[in-house]
């Protein structure tokens, strides 16, 4: 017995260092087997989900730090929530240092994958899709990290979200790169966040391609320094299918990049074309609000070095058609509501810019449209950041 105990002690002492693989294969009772694996995992473990279709009836959730959830590929390992009966999302992560990679989530009733308060999360090679195409009954967000520090979204594909495909909210230090967002209302959205790099993505056939928002009355305000660089934002032509009550329901069909009320945003070196309303829109928050400290104006916005293709041929915002007619049939590539005037400090070399000179909250009928050329002034000081090396290593 004594020898047994000594041996057990050695084994027990050794185990924590040994990261385990917990393997879950497709088959009957997938819900309980997969959820059990997510509950049994210990820090350092990998939950390996085999190839095949997993038919799930409820949301899955992970609340253990340092766990990797890994499938056999975004086309081979499919978590299908077509028969989902409960929970607000397909997969919910509420722990830190989690890596999600190489699997797909399909047809969840609410959001696809949500991570809340999940610091240093990595989404790598993940697909979230509503397979019936764009519909108002699809879930809201595809991948949805919120209230998190350090977020990496790399090589992710989202299709069909009735709000935003890739939505990062109320978070800091965010990288969204090499990802694809198609047939969503909003392709990629950075909302009430600070320090974000959105680079090398494809946003196509959404209603709006890439959105950078700062909204009032949320627990966290936007903190700016959002870089939108080197993306292809093309053919965002899916009619807005968001349920009308949503903020994104007001995004005009054919919007490339939309900056609303956020400060310190740089839109540079992107390829933009086929966006029927405008390739780039910069606007203030137009709704009434009571949040006393909220700043409804976008400030320090730089639009430079973007390659503008065909745009402005089907302006979908109120009064857009009339404006286009007055300007010879199409609108210029950049649209600015003009709200806030010089306060906004809209600079760069993109253009021409259609400026409406609207007062805050004023209707489009009060517009004083004019074409302006941006001042290519020096950019305002910028803040950069680096994600922890372990996150980059996990995304290799």
């Amino acid at each position, binding site marked *: 017995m004594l020898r047994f105990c000594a041996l057990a002690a050695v084994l027990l002492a050794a185990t924590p260092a040994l990261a385990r693989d917990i393997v879950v294969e497709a088959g009957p009772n997938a819900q309980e087997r997969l959820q059990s694996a997510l509950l049994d995992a210990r820090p350092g473990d990998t939950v390996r989900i085999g190839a095949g279709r997993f038919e799930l009836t409820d949301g899955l*959730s992970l609340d253990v730090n340092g766990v990797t959830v890994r499938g056999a590929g975004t086309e081979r390992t499919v978590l299908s929530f077509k028969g989902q009966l*409960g929970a607000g999302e397909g997969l919910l992560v509420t722990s830190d240092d989690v890596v999600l990679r190489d699997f797909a989530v399909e047809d969840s*009733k609410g959001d696809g994958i949500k991570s809340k308060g999940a610091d240093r999360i990595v989404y790598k090679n993940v697909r979230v899709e509503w397979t019936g195409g764009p519909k108002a009954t699809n*879930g*809201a967000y595809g991948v949805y990290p*919120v209230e998190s520090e350090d977020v990496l979204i790399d090589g992710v594909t989202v299709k069909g979200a009735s709000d935003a495909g890739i939505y990062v909210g109320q978070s800091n230090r965010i990288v969204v790169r090499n990802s694809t967002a198609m047939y969503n209302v909003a392709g990629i959205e950075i909302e009430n966040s600070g320090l974000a790099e959105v680079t090398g993505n494809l946003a196509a056939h959404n209603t709006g391609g890439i959105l950078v928002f700062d909204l009032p*009355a949320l627990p966290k305000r936007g903190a700016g320094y959002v870089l939108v660089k080197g993306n292809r934002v093309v053919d965002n032509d899916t009619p807005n299918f968001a349920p009308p009550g949503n903020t994104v329901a007001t995004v005009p069909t054919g919007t490339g990049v939309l900056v609303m009320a956020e400060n310190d945003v740089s839109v540079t070196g992107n390829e933009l074309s086929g966006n029927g309303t405008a390739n780039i829109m910069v606007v203030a928050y137009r709704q009434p609000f009571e949040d006393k400290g909220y700043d409804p104006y976008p400030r320090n916005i730089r639009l430079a070095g973007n390659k503008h293709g065909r745009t402005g041929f089907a302006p979908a915002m109120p009064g857009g058609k009339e404006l286009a007619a007055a300007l010879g049939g199409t609108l210029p590539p950049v649209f600015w509501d003009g709200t806030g005037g010089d306060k906004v400090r809209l600079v760069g070399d993109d253009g021409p810019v259609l400026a409406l000179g609207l007062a805050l909250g004023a209707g489009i009928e009060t517009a004083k449209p004019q074409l302006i050329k941006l001042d290519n002034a020096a950019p305002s000081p910028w803040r950069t950041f680096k994600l922890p090396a372990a996150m980059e290593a996990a995304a290799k």
Partner: protein
Amino acid sequence: MKALLGAVALFAAALIGRPGGVNDAAITGEGYPARLSEFGFFTDLAARMPAQGLFRYDLDTPLFSDYAAKERYIYLPAGARAKYDPDGPLDLPVGAALVKTFGYPVDGRFKPLETRVLLHRAGGWVPIPYVWNAEGSDADIRRAGTRIPVAFVDPSGERHAISYAVPNQNQCKDCHGLAGRVTPIGIKAHYLNHGGQLEKMLAAGMLDRLPPDAPRVARWDDQAAPLDARARAWLEINCAHCHNPRGAASNSGLFLDLARTDPEQRGLFKRPTAAGRGAGTRDFDIVPGVPDASILLYRMESTDPGIAMPELGRATVHKEGVALVRQWIESMPKSAPGR
């Protein structure tokens, strides 16, 4: 080694435990007992006769769980006392447990479906769901949750056949999580302060003190109580465990705890944050005077998992709760959103 010692202690306790007594080691140990019987919370499990140290309680305004009936117990180890708190839950010592059995009447008798235990261990509160066997003789651990087909008749006489959801352990934490720590929800003075419950606990030496001005929540279905107090009590117990600044819905900015005073945080002319299609065609959480323009009611009236609130544990609409909140919103003077 610690785990091994724990296992030995558990084993020993199971052998030498007082017959009919609660197995304290099962509460404070590290493992997940496979069966409810291992805790010894009930001297006669099939009849659910509570063991010594268990105190039966109920809430003046309870969480709606698909019209399930609930039997709730606080367990305190011998000599232990709960500490009174005027705002938060009663402060229970390590070794305490909350035991809550959910079920429906079948042929006039309560038939248990599941028992959820919350165990106060040294590292914090641990939730474990147990599902009763068909004979009703014991309940087995189901950490990953499950679904059970259930048929019942609601108080209005309407028949329901639903897929009843037993939550998985993480889902327990979704509702019970407060700033990342699992926390009891219902055992707050204002929910317990009726029918002499707190006085009984005090008299039994289970509570350290009971001030004469202990708060009391309105009974949601007490027509004699003010409408505002009833509706807000219903919203707190059904929503505020997530909808508070430290809960699972902290990012929403909608906070439904009773102490909240800011009108916008309470939902008045508050726009949705990340409701997605949960907002339907509506613009604000609450439009005073116009329930059918209020997102709050839209989500209460839905059973679609992408829309319904609460997100967990509800496959039916709480018609009486909806009627109450509808009446409450209707009673508010109509106004327009300010700037």
